[in-house]
């Protein structure tokens, strides 16, 4: 029997303090930037360029978290989760500083995504978790008499899943199986087909609908914005690295780049 230990969780209070610190740091930057040397006001200056790079590197940690917890290799997913919170908060501050206060340019959309990600994350932690707790014993189907039609549909879906699983992962038990990153990488077609069946089963169970859009939707939305953000960062990096001339708009290119198209 493992000995119970205090879980290394970021408490609501710590999260509030972390968020307040990040917001204060951003506000302070905005308030003080006019008194800073010009290099600290130009996103392309070496100082702010490096700040941006550092911010982007920190923001890679949440990506690493998402991959690590699905990879089957993480021994401490919770530590990765905590790292994703801390690094994304600090990374967001650095990215704001990197922006130099230019909020009307296209890259500022990335800042908007960061704000949305942070807001969703904080909402989920402070309020969404209360809803999660209140979900216990709340779903109407618990009281329902079995419906023969739905049961037949479920029976067919389960049979299809089992058939598919024989090719996707012959050693797996359908009752406890779910698609992992490695399945997606090795047999993407089968993995996505299986995922589709799993989603169909969940829909028949009606579990997502039962908890409402906010509770069931915040996490898919969080991930969608995160991947959009990652895509946006990639576009930004490619642009400033290969289309430095376009970004400079005829001005001096002060940052490291590979082409000045």
């Amino acid at each position, binding site marked *: *029997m493992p*000995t*119970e*230990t*205090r*879980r290394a969780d*970021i408490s*609501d209070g710590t999260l509030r303090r972390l968020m307040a610190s990040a917001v204060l740091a951003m506000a302070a930057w905005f308030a003080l930037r006019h008194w800073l040397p010009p290099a600290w006001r130009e996103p392309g200056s070496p100082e702010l360029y490096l700040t941006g790079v550092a911010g982007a590197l920190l923001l890679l940690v949440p990506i690493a978290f998402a991959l690590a*917890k*699905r*990879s*089957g290799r*993480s021994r*401490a*997913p*919770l530590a*990765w*989760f905590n790292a994703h919170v801390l690094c994304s908060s600090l990374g967001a501050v650095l990215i704001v500083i990197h922006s130099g206060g230019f909020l009307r340019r296209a890259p500022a959309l990335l800042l908007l995504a960061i704000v949305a990600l942070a807001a969703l994350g904080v909402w*989920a*932690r402070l309020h*969404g*978790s*209360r809803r*999660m*707790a*209140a*979900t*216990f*014993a*709340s*779903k*109407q*189907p*618990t*009281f*329902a*008499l*079995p*419906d023969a039609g*739905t*049961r037949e549909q*479920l*029976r067919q879906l*389960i049979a299809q899943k089992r058939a598919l699983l024989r090719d996707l992962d012959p050693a797996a*038990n*359908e*009752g*406890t*199986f*779910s698609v992992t990153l490695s399945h997606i990488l090795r047999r993407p077609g089968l993995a996505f087909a299986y995922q589709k069946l799993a989603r169909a089963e*969940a829909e028949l*169970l*009606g*579990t*997502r609908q*039962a*908890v409402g859009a906010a*509770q*069931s939707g915040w*996490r898919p939305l969080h991930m969608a914005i995160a991947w959009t953000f990652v895509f946006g960062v990639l576009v930004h990096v490619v642009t400033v690295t290969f289309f430095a001339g376009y970004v400079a708009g005829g001005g001096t290119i002060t940052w490291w780049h590979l082409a000045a198209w």
Partner: protein
Amino acid sequence: MTGDAMRLALMIDLERCTGCKSCEAACKQEHRLGPGEFRNKVIWSSGTSEPALAFLTLACQHCERPACLRACPVNPKAIVKDPVSGVVSVDEDRCTGCGECVIACPYSAMGYDAEGHHAVKCDLCSERRAHGQTTACASVCPTKAISFGAREDLLLRAESEGRSQRDNDQFLLGPATIYLERLEASTRDFRRPAFPDAPAAKSVFRSARPAFPYRELRADASADRVEPGGCNICFNCCSTKYHFRGKELVRITGNDEDPLLEGRVCPKSQLMLQLYHSEHRLLYPQKRVGERGEGRFERIGWDQALDEIAAKLERLRETHGAEALALFIGTRTGILEYLGYSRLFAQLWGTPNHEGTDPFCASGKNVAYLLTQGSIGSGNSYTREDIGSAGMYLYLGDNQAETRPVYFGMVNDWRIRNRAKMVVVDPRLTVTASKADRWLAIRPGTDMALALAMCHHILDKRLHDERFCAEWIVGFGEWRDFLFARGYTPDWAGPVTGIAAAEIRRLAAEVAGADGCVIFASRGINQHTNGTQTNRALMFLAAITGNWGRRGGAFFNMTAGAPIAPDAPKERRPALRRPRVRRSPTGWTEAMTKGKPYPIRALIACNNPMAQWPGQEAARAAFKALDLLVHIELFANETSAYADYLLPAATGIEKGEIGRANDDRRIVWIDKMIEPPGEAKADGWIWVELARRLGFGDVLKEEYKDTGVFWDEVCIGNELMRGVTQKRLHSVPWRWVRQPVMSESAPEIDTLYLEGTTAPGAPRGHRFPTGSGKLEFWTEAMEGKFQTVGLSALPEFYSEREQLADLPYIELLDADADEGVISPFCRPDTSSARGRIVAASADGPGARLRALGYDTELVTGRPPAAHFHSMTHYLWQAQEMWPDLYCQIHPEKAAQMGIADGGRVRIETAHGAIEAVAWIHAGIRASAVFVPIGWGERQPFHPWRSVNFLTDKTQRDPVSDQTNLKVLLCRVSRAAA
């Protein structure tokens, strides 16, 4: 794949479950779960179109195909399924708190810790299993509705008992949990969660971090020693075990060594764990600095408080006399306080105005028992051979499943095993009624008519036990002639009670024909102006059918009462100058406000009269008029706000105590195990200290601060209790002895008054402890007593003044300010109003109220099992289970008034108005609403005005001074937003 033979599961018997939520309390204790955090939960569902009440204990189903596990995005999973036992559990250290498992579980049986941000779930108590124990929920279940074991074994057991399994696999997940269907399963689904458990009303209970040991690590809350004791909250008197880690109490469980209760306890015993570290406890004496009712106090020391109180009492005695001090000792304080310390104090001081809560609850049945049997309480016991052997159980105005949950669990078990009949007569489909073969929705206040009509039918058809009637009843002939002369037939009773005459005949025949029928009655019978006579009529019913002085046949009206009545030495008792103002404390208010019939200027109150006394407006005006109000209490409540001095009290294991009087005559001893918090003191300590200051220290001695010494030296001085010594109580690990035992070595008697025996304490050959040795229905002396208060000893039917039908009612000829007459029914001498039965008429008080729109019967009573009076309203989990004051209302009435389930309603009587939350429930008379007691407007979590703002202190029984609390006319409307 799980090996089926080893697959573990819970088996939940829906026929046995009474929805008490003891399993929830046990689970939170075991796993130290905080507010809003669940591994199991009991969901109540009500009928919306037809009367129904059902309970579903929900916990993880440990599915073959766990949806939660498959939804977990972590790899390897944070949720695992043991391949052998099939147990699905969460690895909380791997869980990142995303909540996908919570969303995925279609049973909504996955919990979540909102403070720690991770999933929590039932793992069938892995730590307990590792030590060979059953699950926490199964270990306490008062009804044995929850079993734990190998699934195949459980299924075999169910099959051998002829029970069918409910199909709960609508999602094809292969749940392991077995639900045993009701014996008569409904095929239609017309229920939905009762509003407190409905998703729409669900919100996470928020509070500060709960006090120790909740949310602590297992290692910090694991016991290193266990002390046996008991629960002193309700009338079930469960034996318990107190688990300590060092000096800290870490858990309260049932006492599994108890051969009778076998470890069963209801939630209250367990929730007391939240009492001992409660942030709401009073910690030091306080003195009022603001206006009365304002609630402003300053901290003072014990010496100052007691010195000042003693000085004020001395001045009061000089000015107004000793009787100007009244003592009200509520149930919270315990039996030793009420029957011991405060009784002696009252005698030494010289006031007759000393009372507990009996006149609000039980005085009618006490008088009836004394008149009929010569002692209070049934002589039967909760054993398989006695109550367990009955062929029929008839409940009238007794919701035993919620008021004595463990006893009901035993009765229900015997009912199921023996296929015994159960009928419940109650205006509401209570939890008790939900288990019965039939529920008869009687008009409140007319049970006497039902009893008389059943007796009439039995005697008319000669279904009675003729030999018993001839040999063991005094006054049988006089009463039978009276009954026939009055024509109390089933046809007469039908329209009075609202129960069809054919049904009354059927019920009467069933009672008479059963091989042992146990008739249970309780507050629904007692709390009426006809409470004494209705109890007597029911006793007559039991007696003429031979259900008295036999195993498996009895009349029970809780409780048996502990025969403790110590007296101060005669020479130390000042002669009482005046009779007691009234037996009911609510009859003292004119003495407080108007000084009539003589002044009461000071009150020492233990408990919460400002929520508890009927007629709150009068009570509050009276308390404002006092010169001195001392309040001894655990928590600051409504009464505290009016007090001059607020003294912090101790309870249960903080002082040493016996459990309450209970049906089964068991005296349960509770040792003092911990010190009270802060400067709080045991009630006994306070009385002894006050007595010393007033010169009574030679009787209320210093050593009596030790309740064990007080017990042995003072409380068991009579022959019925002489054997219940501390030594004997401590000689058994369950710490109880069933009285009477006349010596330390005398055997306990399971069933008293059997034929051929002599009643304990009675002259040889007296089977019953009456003067005649027989049950007494009527004697000339008894007639004289009744006539003193304007009634006859032959029970004549009357009901309440506020009724929807025109029925005879009692009119009191003397107000509380009048001297009245000296009651022949109580000691010491007590003034009583005389009564007069007023015949039914179309222009009576009921008709006048109906003309004003008061068109609904208000029934008050006990809330579900987790609550007891106001005490449990300071415990966070009891509030989580049952947060708001509710008003059960029939769907038809709700629809008429535009009232929605969970909406706020206003209930108004001619005496006051309150608001509550609507609980639409088809299991109540369409013409009635039910509002429970216990809530108060100064409670910390969910404050509501007490239901006693609706009650009327002037509607009382002239025999017992019991107040009518069970039927008042009211009007119900949707409350303004």
